[in-house]
């Protein structure tokens, strides 16, 4: 059962409350998204750790329900 962009954003913000999330549906199939997540909580963390935080927020859907999420993370400017 594919996911919708709103649910992805809700899940991310539930675990990373200060996050700003922009999501683009790459193919309109609910399975291939690109997301840019910005949060102060990423400060001092490696990219791998930042992405792992986002994957944890998605509570196991990454790689399953959500086949592809092209992810970019950054800390606020």
């Amino acid at each position, binding site marked *: 059962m594919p996911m919708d962009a709103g649910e992805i954003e809700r899940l991310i913000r539930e675990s990373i409350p200060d996050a700003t999330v922009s999501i683009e549906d790459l193919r309109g199939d609910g399975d291939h998204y690109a997301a840019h997540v910005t949060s102060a909580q990423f400060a001092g963390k490696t990219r791998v750790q930042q*992405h792992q935080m986002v994957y944890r927020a998605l509570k196991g859907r990454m790689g*399953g329900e959500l086949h592809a999420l092209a992810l970019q993370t950054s800390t606020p400017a």
Partner: protein
Amino acid sequence: MSDPVVFDRIRQDIKDNDVVLYMKGTPVFPQCGFSAAVVQVLSHVGVKFKGVNVLTDPEVREGIKAFANWPTIPQLYVKGEFVGGCDIVREMFETGELQSLLKDKGVQVTAAAAQ
């Protein structure tokens, strides 16, 4: 809960090979866009690597996700360390971080790509 047996196989592979890419398909015939993208980056950088086709090895396909605490394939390892999946490897290539990581770790790159 002791480590799954497959972790030993993975540890051996990433120890014996400077650069290992766990991917869907093979370097010559990648069978997933993300895996193909990383193969392309590695050939641009001009680094030799071992491709492990997880589609023919279900145990590694799941084991590698637990090993790196990373839910997707492809996964790139340099000198035994997890570097990232497709997004991170591409981003590091664009910023030049991948090239300097390989240099810092003393991994051979072909002269053509080293300019």
